[in-house]
């Protein structure tokens, strides 16, 4: 067995330190239970090492966790600090609490996303055996993986551009296996839609949040008229904030995650497509060599290698994609059910508050 989780995390100035905790009965580890401290860059290093490893070309590489981003939250806290003079002590403490809660939520999310990445790797029959993964889990010194410098980032960028240009090329090649053809078109569309949907839901949530902040200021003024009503709005506002947070978690995050995974699946298809092109080119080269009767042996070996590579990728890719679909459907089901249940819970909560407040107001005429 191999169980990995993030047991602790610390947020320092501009970096987060994750405590990766492993429990394992595998013989390759020195102990059965141990922990190391890792930073975001080291996760990225691990992910990239998978991507660059030819052996894993036939698998969907679990997407890398996104960089922890507290900038927006920090900015808001700073602005709050600057505006401290212009509001009452009560308002200030309330807003501070809210922003701190927001910061905490973002923090929890980034921990969760890093954890999910590790768990996916640990659950994958092949990737869990990867040496780099074991080093990542066990080596208790700094892995000294610096973040990519500008030049390397630029190289990456061009690689991506070439890949997408290539991708277009490769997509055009007629595929032998219909299954893969279908998957490719589906994933392409899906990927785009998910991107759109997640962007829209982000915006919706932001306006939902600002509405609740508004309501907050709204009620401190209403105090003059009906204390009860202002209390009501304070409570419903809290519920609305929770609704926004839940929608964020269940829907937006789900969509964002599957956006990344579907990209990883696309990458797999791309690699397979590439391998196919290489194989077909090798075939053509072999025919040419036979015709000229020159370098035939070399051409034969190249062709063999390409054939093997292609077949290896195809074999595992099919299963990977089926697994991906199963995982996706299950995740959507879980999240959509939970989303609906939470929405109901909050709506009922709101309803009750409104009913009781109305009861009181109508009662004392």
């Amino acid at each position: 067995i191999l169980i990995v989780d993030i047991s602790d995390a610390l947020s320092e100035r501009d970096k987060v330190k994750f405590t990766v905790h492993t429990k394992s009965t595998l013989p390759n580890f020195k102990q059965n239970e141990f922990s190391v401290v890792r930073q975001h860059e080291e996760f990225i290093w691990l992910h990239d090492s998978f991507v660059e490893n030819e052996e894993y070309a036939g698998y969907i590489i679990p997407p890398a966790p996104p960089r922890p981003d507290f900038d927006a939250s920090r900015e808001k806290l700073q602005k709050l600090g600057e505006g401290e003079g212009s509001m009452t002590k009560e308002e200030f403490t309330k807003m501070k609490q809210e922003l701190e809660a927001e910061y905490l939520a973002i923090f929890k999310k980034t921990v969760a996303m890093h954890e999910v990445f590790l768990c996916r790797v640990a659950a994958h029959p092949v990737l869990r055996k990867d040496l780099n993964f074991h080093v990542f889990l066990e080596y208790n010194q700094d892995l000294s993986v610096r973040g990519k410098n500008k030049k390397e980032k630029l190289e990456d960028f061009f690689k991506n551009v070439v890949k997408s240009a290539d991708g277009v090329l490769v997509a055009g090649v007629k595929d032998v296996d219909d299954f893969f053809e279908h998957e490719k078109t589906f994933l392409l569309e899906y990927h785009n839609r998910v991107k759109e949907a997640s962007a829209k839901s982000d915006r919706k949530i932001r306006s939902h949040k600002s509405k609740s902040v508004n309501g907050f200021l709204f009620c401190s003024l209403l105090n003059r008229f009906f204390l009860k009503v202002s209390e009501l709005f304070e409570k419903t506002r809290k519920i609305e904030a929770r609704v926004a947070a839940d929608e964020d978690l269940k829907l937006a995050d789900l969509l964002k995650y599957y956006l990344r995974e579907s990209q990883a699946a696309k990458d797999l298809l791309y690699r397979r497509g590439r391998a196919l092109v290489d194989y077909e080119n090798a075939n053509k080269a072999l025919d040419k060599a036979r015709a000229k009767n020159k370098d035939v042996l070399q051409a034969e070996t190249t062709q063999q290698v390409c054939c093997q590579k292609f077949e290896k990728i195809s074999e595992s890719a099919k299963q990977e994609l089926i697994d991906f679909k199963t995982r996706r459907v299950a995740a959507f089901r879980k999240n959509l059910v939970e989303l609906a249940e939470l929405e109901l819970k909050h709506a009922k909560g709101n309803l009750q508050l409104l009913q009781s407040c109305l009861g009181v107001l109508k009662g004392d005429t």
Partner: protein
Amino acid sequence: MFCSCELILFLLLTGDGMNAYMAYKVSTQTSLTMFRSKTFTVRRRFSDFLGLYEKLSEKHSQNGYIVPPPPEKSILGMTKVKVGKEDPSSAEFVERRRAALERYLQRVVSHPSLLQDPDVRDFAACIDNYVLCLFVCALSGAGFLKMLNKATDAVSKMTIKMNEQDVWFDEKIQDVENEEQHMRKLHVMVESLVNHRKELSGNTAVFAKSVAMLGSSEDNTALSRALSQLAEVEDRIEQLHQEQASNDFFTFSELLADYIRLLGAVKGCFDQRMKAWQRWQDAENMLQKKREAEAKLLWANKPDKLQQAKDEIAEWEAKVTQYEREFERISATVRKEVIRFDKEKARDFKRQIVKYLESLLNSQQQLIKYWEAFLPEAKAIA
């Protein structure tokens, strides 16, 4: 004993080009005996309402009555309607104005003293050619504001601090000032709440569309169906948000705007009382001067001018008595008016807030229905 008025938009645009105007049907139901019948209907236009206000203000503000102010002219709003712009903001503007005029008129006829004014009776009941004769108000925007502000002539012009005998007035005016401040702030908040809700509704609509598209490209049938159901739910929620936004607006925001204007009128009647006091004081000073003049004449022994001086003293003594009585009368009126205003305001706000909360309640009930319908779909995903 009641009198209630209802306003219906009769003709959206009548007249030609830029001179076009909206005509309203004003229907009154009443049990008051001063009217000849129990129900009647007349046609009026916006400028008629303004004209009514002008008349009432002229006659009654100086006596300390709180004359309800009408809604403001809106050149932009009217121009859009005239130009025939077919957009939702025009429709909103038209309804907003109608509702505001209705509330204005209802306040006027609910005022027991103003209702006695024949001009009010004529406005509600007089049928023909009303539009052309008495109440045409051709004031520009600036002129209109000036008219409203006439009633609230700057207290700052008063250099003498009033020796307030009755502490009630001092406290009251302070209360009114505070209240107006708070209401303005609240009004701004509600407006931004309305905007946010509209934005939320817009985003929800867009989101619903993209979820629908996502559902259509999903090849697992159950998930695909669930996603398109989700899209439908979000669509309905968007509708809900839209309605709630207009509710927020019409129930709350407009109420606040009305009361901000009304508080201005309340301040106005305090000012009128100040003026009355000033008049009385000036008369007292004049009387004093005349008495001093008389004394001087006595001393200088000029018997011929003496009679004139005595006459003037008598004249000013009478004026002082008159102005003092007027001041006391206006103080009593202001006091009564403000107490009545406070009661009405409390009732108004309470009623509107209850209405608003009920609309929020409905929204939540709808939300619950939608999500309850969706849950089984989500659970059916396999």
